[in-house]
């Protein structure tokens, strides 16, 4: 069910939410959080769809704020989606024009669910300091997506690093979880040798390979390099160099099938499917405390980019 409310007020939206529940009982009661999603019109529907999927695991009230023309007449259009159109969540879409755009925090306050945590997710940008934005202040967890943001690698990492406050995370980091899990599991097995060098091959305009290389270099106390390839795959390969030889995981672009190459040259195949947007979001919503490892990785990642010369060009790597 979709209920449009044109040229409305936030109180009318709040009243409508209550009356839907009284009349229809269509809205289940167990909501575990309020999710705020400030997003541009172009990315809005994709974000809503991903959030609806995640709501199966984390039922929530989803408040989507879409900024329109900032110069026009001040106005608020709203849309409430419940039932089949909203997964296990209830969705409130607020379209803001004119001065309303500057009023976002005061607009959402009456709609925040009592007691449960608030999470803000920016699907298409990284604010300078997410925690200081009006929608970031009301939230205990803030999720950005630097993969979708504009700017060079250094600019994006600078924003992540300088803007980091406990409670922030970025989906570029989330998308690495399964790569990290497999790499960690390799070191659970013999031979328990020191890793002397790490090479990450991927698209260097994306923050993801740098974050992975930083994490590996930091935890393994060894030099780490990122090799750039012309490829649409964000991450192509990771190599761990040890005295006994190189062990590497490859995932060619456009596939979820990865190969693990042992120092002996023996190859094993396994599935390493890239996580979808809603997989990433669900993972973020599972823990609402600060991810300090992420905080350290973005800080070290930026320092490493600025002071080291570890980015090499390996465009000859085949896909």
């Amino acid at each position, binding site marked *: 069910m979709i209920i449009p409310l044109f040229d409305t007020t936030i109180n009318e939206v709040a009243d409508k939410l209550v009356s839907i529940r009284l009349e229809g009982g269509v809205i*289940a*009661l*167990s909501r*575990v959080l309020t999710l705020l999603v400030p997003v541009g019109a172009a990315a809005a529907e994709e974000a809503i769809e991903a959030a609806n999927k995640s709501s*199966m*695991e*984390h*039922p929530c009230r989803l408040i989507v704020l879409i900024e329109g023309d900032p110069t026009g007449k001040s106005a608020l259009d709203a849309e409430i989606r419940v039932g089949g159109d909203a997964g*296990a969540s209830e969705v409130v879409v607020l379209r803001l024009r004119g001065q309303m755009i500057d009023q976002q925090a005061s607009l959402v306050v009456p709609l925040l669910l009592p007691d449960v945590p608030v999470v803000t997710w920016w699907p298409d940008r990284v604010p300078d300091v997410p925690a200081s934005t009006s929608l970031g202040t009301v939230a205990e967890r803030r999720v950005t997506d630097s993969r979708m943001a504009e700017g060079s690698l250094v600019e994006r990492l600078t924003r992540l690093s300088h803007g980091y406050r406990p409670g922030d995370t970025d989906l570029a980091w*989330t998308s690495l*979880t*399964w790569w*990290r*899990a*497999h*790499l*960690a*599991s390799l*070191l*659970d*097995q*013999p031979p*328990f040798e020191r*890793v002397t060098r790490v090479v990450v091959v991927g698209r260097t305009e994306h923050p993801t390979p740098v974050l992975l290389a930083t994490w*590996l270099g930091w*935890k*393994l*106390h060894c030099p780490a390099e990122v090799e750039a390839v012309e490829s649409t795959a964000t991450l192509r390969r990771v190599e761990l160099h040890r005295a006994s030889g190189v062990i590497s995981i490859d995932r060619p672009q456009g*596939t*979820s*099938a*990865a190969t*693990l190459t*042992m120092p002996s040259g*023996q190859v*094993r*195949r*396994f*599935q*390493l*499917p890239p996580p979808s947007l809603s997989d990433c979001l*669900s*993972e973020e919503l*599972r*823990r609402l405390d600060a*991810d*300090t*490892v992420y905080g350290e990785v973005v800080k070290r990642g930026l320092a490493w980019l600025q002071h080291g010369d570890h980015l090499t060009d390996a465009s000859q790597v085949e896909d």
Partner: protein
Amino acid sequence: MNQILSPQPVNPLRDPADRRLPRIASPCGLVLFGVTGDLSRGKLLPALYDLANQGLLPVGFALVGFARRDWTVDQFCDFVEKSVRAHCRTPFRETSWRQFSSGFRFVQGEFSDAEAFDRLAETLRDVDETQGTGGNHAFYLSVPPSASPVVCENLAASHLATPPEGSWRRVVVEKPFGHDLESAIALESVVGQVFPQESIFRIDHYLGKETVQNLLALRFANEMFEPLWNSHHIDHVQITMAEDIGIAGRAGYYDGIGAARDVIQNHLLQLMALTAMDEPIAFNASDLSREKEKLLSAVVLPRELGMHTSRGQYAAGNQAGRPVIAFHDEDGIAPDSATETFAAIRLDIDTRRWAGTPFYLRTGKRLGRRVTEIAIVFKTVPHVPFGPASEVLAPNALVVRVQPDEGVRLRFGAKVPGTAMEIREVSMDFGYGNSFTQASPEAYERLLLDVFLGDPPLFPRRPEVELSWKILDPVEEYWASHEAPEPYAPGSWGPAGADQMMARDGRAWRRP
């Protein structure tokens, strides 16, 4: 598995602060005995494929089927593919399937055929070589209980049960774990001679890990329940597992076993132990088992078993609008079978916390609907200040729904809207279904992963199995020497005797 993990150096990539990092099992193989059985076809093989498809299987995995049929590997692959296509819950993808099936092997043989086990040993050496399984193997005994000992003995004889240095061997045993104390001890002593206790995984597929975790979280992650969790405030506890189906073609297994051995001995006594036990020191295998064992060893049976137990058999009739046949008319059941399809017993716990609070356990087939619930029924309010105008309220109750629709319901009194001071019962309901069911790694997937990871905390241990039989054996003996089970109408909540048994204590069964 501690003795395997401890000599390993600390993995520098594992950081306790890095809590999102999942654990992936190290390379290993799974040997499936009874691979052609229903469970294997319907649950285990599809679950393995789903794990592979999601990238959750160890990198370097081999599946070895062991069965009587004279199959080639290709025939075995076809068989697995059919089961997977019919039952997998993630999409069937060619690439995943090709990778998954490249690690298949098949060994033909009888469970008693020592040579077949030598061939199995040969096959495992081969997969260690080609699939890189590194000597790590789990043996899943999806076989009739009577076959478990001979499989274990043959595994030992072929030196398959002893892991080479730096690797592991584990065995998975399905319930039932025997049919009385004596047979349970006999089974355990064979399995226990071959495998060390920490390598034995006892699986009760009724009891999902998620359920156990939910129950423990409710009890021990909250402040507001534990102070009331004793005989001062709780009048009694009812634990129900009801099925709406009959024995559905399982006559061979069910006849002579019956509802109490099938469900009460393992499932309901486990739920009772989890509901009533003290808080474990930590959430790990040994501390959890210690508390459950303590609780089970304090359980006492009613002195007069006839007054406080009940058993029944479903008669013919209509259930949910469909005619159904009586238990006696099921295929393979003798017309004079004394096997019960409904069982209810009262148990008391002789501890300071629970003395005076009885636990009522019941289970049955062809009951009103499929449901498993734990109901904590509180005492009535000592005094109600609203005068005679307020009707007598049912006591407060906290109901933990185990399945379906896992959740928690709290029943309490509230004022009826309007001017008169009328009180009525209302319910507050919380459904895990909405909130915390991770879009959901099915029970068998999780269970297989735990076996590969060597993570047994929630599986019952040997002393629990034996204590449970000690509780049930006297009841079974009493029943065997007394009158036959009472008939009950299908779709009802059991025989009249079950209601009488509660009425003697001045209580009544809830309608679940």
